[in-house]
């Protein structure tokens, strides 16, 4: 009788606990998978690698979902996991990824409007940007994080982050203007 009573009261609690964890995970995936994937893509420059990293990131997130107390911090938490996952990739295999980035960027110039051509050029330029300048910019534009938050995520001080943001935008602006000029003179 005692065993019966125990079973009845404990089992539903456990399964409802699992169920709410599952729901929480599902909404986390739905809300943030696009941002996480894009962030991974711009870190590594390859869609397949980005998908792998995203998978690993979310699996790790599932395993330690209980440690995420505040849902508002979910994005920063996932990005921290992702950055660690990405770093692990470099520990595993020592490839030179800097060349890969430009090669694997999507080429959708062949049948496209002017707007898409411009977007292609911008993507090329973002891809060419040094990773140390690119990453804070990604965090700012994809993640919507403030300078302080970026500093915390990247474990840098705020001034360094702001300098990098400044350089990232200056370089991009310059490169794109140069492209515009070249485009005009050619046309």
């Amino acid at each position, binding site marked *: 009788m005692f065993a019966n009573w125990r079973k009845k009261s404990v089992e539903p609690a456990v399964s409802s606990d699992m169920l709410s964890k599952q729901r929480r*995970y*599902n909404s986390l*995936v*739905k809300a943030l*998978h*696009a941002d996480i*994937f*894009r962030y991974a*893509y*711009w870190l590594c420059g390859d*869609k397949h690698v980005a*998908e792998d990293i*995203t*998978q690993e990131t*979310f*699996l790790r997130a*599932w395993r330690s979902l209980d440690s995420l107390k505040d849902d508002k911090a979910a994005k920063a938490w996932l990005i921290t996991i992702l950055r660690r996952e990405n770093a692990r990739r470099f520990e595993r295999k020592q490839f030179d990824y800097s060349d890969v980035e430009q090669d694997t960027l*999507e080429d959708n110039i062949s049948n496209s409007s002017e707007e898409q051509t*411009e*977007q292609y050029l*911008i*993507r090329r330029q*973002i891809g060419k940007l040094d990773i140390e300048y690119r990453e804070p*910019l*990604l965090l*700012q*534009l*994809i993640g919507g994080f403030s*300078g302080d938050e970026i500093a915390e995520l990247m474990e840098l001080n705020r001034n360094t982050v*702001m300098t990098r*943001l*400044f350089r990232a*935008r*200056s370089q*991009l*602006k310059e490169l*794109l203007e140069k492209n515009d000029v070249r485009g005009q003179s050619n046309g």
Partner: protein
Amino acid sequence: MDELKFRRQAYEDPHNQDADFLAQINAKPENQALINELKNLDAKLTNALKVEVADDLADKLILRQQLQQHHKHRRQTGFLVAMAASVAFVVGISFSLLRLGPIDLAEHALAHVYHEGVALQVDQNVNFNQVNAQLASMKDFGNAKFTQQPGKVYYTSYCDFQGVKSLHLVLQGEQSKVTLFIVPLEKRMVLDKTFADGKYQGMGFETPDAFILLIGEDKADLSYVKDEIKNTFI
């Protein structure tokens, strides 16, 4: 705020909402132009960063997690089954080890006599050849047999001595009936020469092929049957 600092801040974050910064934007038209230009750049960059995400990525992420959860569950059940199996294994081993412990034949013999009370009542009037046939059917006894009738045999049956097949006979003594057990030789058996409880006297001895146990109410009868057996059993 000087010009240089303003430009720096504009490049760092054109969407900066600090009062100082906003005031500076409104102060000069070229500042306004710079901010617009940078905001425009940001819009383009943000658009460019939005690479296509596979439609099924979210589903894949959930699927992968659920598969892993399933595997984990399977692993846990596997572990429990393994534990149960090893416990059962240990229990099995210890039981068979317990059975290998020494067996006190005298105690078993007495218990057997009390248990099979009917053996002392019946009169089957068994011929010694029949007993020999039973002995021959049990491999453990080698060539042991009776050479002639050892007095009147009332009863014969196979019986079990702690897993060892043995022969149970009831013979006529001088006064009363005597129960006789013939048990194959085995190392783990322990045999006392004489034993007794409140009702019965017992006697044990060894032949080249078997243990012989005699149990009866009268000691004289036991000796009588013992001599009888020694003469007729080889």
